[in-house]
């Protein structure tokens, strides 16, 4: 009797729209030459990994009810420092990556303090912080490109396959594992549930005894950690880093932002999943392989973003219209009076 009936309706489609987006892209891929080759899949997923790290951080902060625009320049700065440390100070790669991650954590703590203690709106604070990071990154590199040098061991390891016969690069697999760890943290730990609660209603969460300031700072720290670690790994993966990394073509920030919205993360906070963002970002990575020209990519991604936003806005508008009108009572009345079935 309790068997769940699969009801195909708008709500179901809306909930799984990230998966539908991926399926749509994969179907489109059937008509593209050289799309389903192992080499293409490995390259596409590997190149799209940086944005997955950024999208991960962006999603967590969005769930906590804030916005983090710093992710892009943070990852660039982290990549520059990681490569620079190896080239100039001759530190081993592991230490360089940890330094990159620490930079991310530090930036996250600063952002969190700016938002919670100084009570600056997160969006505005992150615009300012973005400019600070841009300046620091320019000063560190003097505007030049820092390359990996002659030490290709880690570069080859990240580019190569971890498991034979499966065309996925090690970098992408590390990204996926990190995503699943964060998903478990968000779903099954106290911190993760608190992040959801603070995003849903900060005041109620505070009244319920959650240390909301700490939770928000932790959300920013996780976001910073993801951006820093991803940036450092991406620097090694691609072999070079420069400040203009995100300014050519479509900015990675926009892709992360689009994926959050397509995935279904609520822009008002409190609802969302890292997995949805992850699936959407993989879809966007494949999309970039389908339409090769940057112009078309920007248009398609922009159109998808605007479409999702319009849908969400209209849905919210219709919901707000019936607030306080008790439509269920009206239905009951209609049933009793026999006006409608």
């Amino acid at each position: 009797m309790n068997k769940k009936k699969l009801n195909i309706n708008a709500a179901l489609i809306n909930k799984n729209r990230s998966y539908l987006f991926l399926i749509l892209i994969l179907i489109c891929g059937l008509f593209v030459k050289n799309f389903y080759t192992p080499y293409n899949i490995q390259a596409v997923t590997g190149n799209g990994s940086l944005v997955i790290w950024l999208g991960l951080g962006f999603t967590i902060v969005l769930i906590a009810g804030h916005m983090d625009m710093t992710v892009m320049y943070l990852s660039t700065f982290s990549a520059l420092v990681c490569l620079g440390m190896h080239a100039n100070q001759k530190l081993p790669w592991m230490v360089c990556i940890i330094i990159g991650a620490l930079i991310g954590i530090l930036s996250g703590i600063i952002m969190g303090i700016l938002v919670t203690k100084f009570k600056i709106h997160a969006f505005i604070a992150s615009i300012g912080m973005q400019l600070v990071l841009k300046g620091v990154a320019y000063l560190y590199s003097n505007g030049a490109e820092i390359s990996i040098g002659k030490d290709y061991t880690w570069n080859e390891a990240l580019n190569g396959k971890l498991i034979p016969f499966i065309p996925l690069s090690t970098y992408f697999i590390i990204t996926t594992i990190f995503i699943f760890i964060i998903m478990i943290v968000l779903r099954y730990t106290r911190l993760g549930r608190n992040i959801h609660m603070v995003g849903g209603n900060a005041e109620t969460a505070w009244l319920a005894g959650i240390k909301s300031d700490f939770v928000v700072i932790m959300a920013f720290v996780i976001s910073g950690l993801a951006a820093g670690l991803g940036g450092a790994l991406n620097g090694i993966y691609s072999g070079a880093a420069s400040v203009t990394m995100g300014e050519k073509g479509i900015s990675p920030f926009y892709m992360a932002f689009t994926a959050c919205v397509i995935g279904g993360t609520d822009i008002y906070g409190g609802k969302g999943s890292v997995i949805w963002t992850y699936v959407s970002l993989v879809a966007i990575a494949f999309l970039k392989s389908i339409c090769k020209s940057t112009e078309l990519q920007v248009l398609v991604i922009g159109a998808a973003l605007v479409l999702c936003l319009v849908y969400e806005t209209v849905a919210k508008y219709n919901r707000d219209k019936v607030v306080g009108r008790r439509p269920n009572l009206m239905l009951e009345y209609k049933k009793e009076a026999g006006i409608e079935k």
Partner: protein
Amino acid sequence: MSEVKKNENTTAPKVDTRKMEINKFSLLFNKMGIWIIVIALMILGMIVSKGQFFTSSNIQSILEAVALTGMVCSGLFYVTYSGNMTDMSVPITMAFGGVMAIQCINFGFIGAILAGVLTGVVIGLINGFMIGKMRANAIIWTLALNLLLSGVIRVVWQGKMLYAEKIADEAHQNSANLFYSISRTYIGGIISLMAIVMLVMFVISWLILTQTGFGQKLKIIGTNYEVARFSGIDCTKQIITAYVINGVCSSIAGIFYAALRKCASYENGTGYDFDALTAILLGGVALTGGKGSMVGTFGGVLAYGLLNNCLSWIGLGTYTKYLVQGIVFLFIVWMNTYSNRKLGKA
């Protein structure tokens, strides 16, 4: 009975322990903070530049650098004032205005300007409809529109630069030259046309804000949207008007920028959203809306230009400028929110 007695015994003298006096510094900063900063920056500039600050060439360069930001600010002010934070589609409005103006150069000079302004109106209407009518999240929606329109410009014009003299046919080369010259005209040999236009736009904006019902209604909407709605104000109409004014001002700035750069492309106007927002916040406009003045905004624009000029006189490179601008921005925003909180207005 016993309870009453107990109460009588323990009644404390009625002293309101809440802090009632207002922080003097906060009040001062709120009232005329920006003009103090402007004077301080002028003195700093005089010291740093060793007396070359008030030469006509330096004043000219400050006014020229400030003009475009000022044009954007005179419109963006209304968006911030109505409680919608900021408009992230300012860069693309500027770019689209310039592109359309150059594309329509064959309709003559006036036609080109009108086409540019009309683009701003249309973008303003789209923004206003989504934010005023459908109550979309202002920041997220304008960010999305920025991306979409950038894609549209890139696809339609294939990411190329547009040059007026190439698009104009034989008969309209004159208007192309006229179009380029608007950013290079100096009235009386000193003050550029851009600065004059900026001043005129600020005066018009000031008149709209203080002398019409629209400005007063917008103040109530910015302070408290629900209260405004229940007191019978047509919020949708006012917010749409605010966004249309913003679109017009941004597109005029975009036209001047295209004329200054002698070409138009999708990347015109990048960074102006941030510059304009900094200037507006410097001018004491509250991010939460409903507080601020046009005179203050003008002071903010001047202060931002003076700050950049001072930094150049000190001899900082572009890279260090980013850092200093970011820190100044964060400090100003913190000051803004802090003084508002101390005054109990936020």
